[in-house]
Every structure is written in C-alpha cells, then in structure tokens.
C-alpha cells in the first residue's frame, strides 16, 4: 500500500507490463516513471532513485474475518463483481519461482513464505514459520515484534511492530517494555495506556522474490 501524494501532486499508477526480478513494476500517469513494487523505488524516469511512502494500513484476511471486524465495510466492485477468478492457484502450489526462477541464495527454499521489510535502509526478512505465535528480533536501535497466528494461511498478513525499547513475554502475553502495552492476538494490535508500539509496513512474499531484489537481506533466525 503506497501513498499517492508525492512531490506535491497526487499521482496515479498502472502496471507497466514489465517485471524486475519477477516483481511487478508500475508506471505513473503523470511522468511515466517506473516504480518497483517490492521496494517502492523509482527505477527509471523523472523520479528515478526516489521512493514512495509505504502506508502500513493494509491487512490480508478472509472475507468472513474482515466483515466480522468491520461490518460497515465497503467492498470493491468491478463491472458488478466483487471477486474474480483465482488464476494464481497453480503458481502458489508450484515449488519453482515464476518462469523457473530460483532464490538469490540457498538460505531458504525458493518458495519459502517470508515477511520482509526495510529498516534504516537495511533489508530484513524472517520465514513465516518462525513467526507463528510471535517472535522478537533485536535490531541495532530497537526491536521488532512479528506475529502470525498458529497455522496461518500463506495469504494472511504478518503483523509487525517496532519499539525502541523492545518487547518481552510476561505471563504468556507479549508486552512492550516501555509502555506496558500488551498484544491482543484477536485484533493483532498492541493496546494499553500511552502510545503503543507502532505498526510497520512490509511484504509477505516468497524468498526468491525478495532475495532477488534485495540480495543483501539479513535473515532473522
């Protein structure tokens, strides 16, 4: 999810019809600049070398869960349809990458599902299977807390939070140290008095997609 307000204008995007390392590249209508979806960075054109702002406001879940959470939700409708044809089914079951591509390195399997993000310019990733029930990773200037429900489907979003002072597990509950905010798995959010840990953006994707675009990724273990 990217902010379309950029450089003082609201810009519109569409698929360029091209890929970089198997990942979508968009173009904007206003300058025809090319934008890599995996990094949010412009790779060619007027805005080359600049980045879009990622908005950590999107979450993926099944419709039944979403409508339970937000009964007044609106639903995208295209030509009278609210859902389409599942044309990716075969791809998601295949162990190979798109057109037989493999990961940049063998630290994880090519199609290992991961959550990945960038922090202070560094690419960081963790395998989904390491995040079920929650996991804390200490960075140079704070900690991240990553959470996936046990048995979560591939498509389900990872919840990610950053705290400068870190997290801990107290009496079976994940807690942010500084604020005492506690993690509520049902809402996938920290709650409590004060300003709780901020949600951060990132990608749930396959290792090959991310590693080909970010070969220097630090892998959280």
């Amino acid at each position, binding site marked *: *999810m*990217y*902010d*379309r307000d950029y450089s003082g204008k609201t810009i*519109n*995007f*569409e*698929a*360029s*019809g*091209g*890929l*970089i*390392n*198997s990942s*979508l*590249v*968009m173009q904007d209508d206003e300058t*025809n600049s*090319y934008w890599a*979806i995996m990094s949010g960075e412009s*790779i*060619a054109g007027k805005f*080359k070398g600049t980045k879009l702002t990622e*908005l950590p*406001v*999107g*979450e*993926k*879940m*099944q*419709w*039944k869960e*979403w*409508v339970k*959470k*937000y009964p*007044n*939700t*609106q*639903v*995208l*409708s*295209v030509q009278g*349809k*609210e*859902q*389409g*044809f*599942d*044309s*990716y089914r075969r*791809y998601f079951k295949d162990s190979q990458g*798109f*057109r037989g591509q493999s990961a940049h390195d063998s630290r994880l399997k090519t199609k290992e599902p991961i959550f990945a993000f960038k922090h202070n310019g560094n690419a960081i990733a963790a395998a989904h299977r390491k995040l079920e029930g929650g996991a804390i990773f200490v960075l140079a200037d704070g900690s991240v807390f990553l959470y996936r429900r046990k048995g979560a*489907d591939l*498509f389900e979003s990872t919840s990610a939070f950053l705290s400068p002072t870190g997290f801990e597990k107290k009496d079976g509950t994940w807690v942010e140290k500084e604020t005492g905010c506690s993690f509520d798995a049902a809402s996938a959010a920290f709650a409590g008095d004060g300003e709780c840990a901020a949600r951060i953006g990132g990608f749930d*994707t*396959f290792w090959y*997609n991310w590693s080909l675009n970010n070969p220097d990724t630090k892998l959280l273990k």
Partner: protein
Amino acid sequence: MIQLQHLISAGALFLLTVTTACAQPRDLPREFEQLLPRGAIAAIRHPSFVSAKDADISDKEWILGVHIDGEARAYSLTLLNSHEVVNDAVGDKNFAAVW
C-alpha cells in the same frame, strides 16, 4: 506476490516484447523485462464500491483490507490480480492498493 504469469499465458509474448521494447527509456535497469504492453493490465482509477450486505463474495475469499479514519474497504485479491493496482482515496488520503 505479483508476477503477471496469468497474463503471460495468453501468448504472443515475443511479439509484445518486440513491439514495446522501442518505447522503453534508456535508464531502465537491465534486469527489467517488458512482458506486456503498458495498459494491457487495466489499473482501476475510479473504484466503485458496494456495501457488505450487497457484496457477492464468498466467506473464504482473501481480501486486502484497509481501515483509515474509521472507514473500511475490502479489495478481493482475485480482483486485484486482474488489475494489479487500485488508485483509491479515503478522505484526503490517496493511496495505491497493491499486494
């Protein structure tokens, strides 16, 4: 999770590559591959919505949801696959829904 392979299977890959290659800017990195002409996948620029009670969507359909300033919107992933990008806005927040 965006690969476009469902559209590649439509064929004519070679022809499309040849016909679009000449329009590319010179500063594109060499890893960039033009597989379809720009516009072959129609982005949504003026999205329409229906209420939850009027939506014909199955319980198990995966959606990308956003909740901004008290307003919730859901985009079916299978619809997103066909359009790749939804240019949307809630209040004064303009955003591109992609996944």
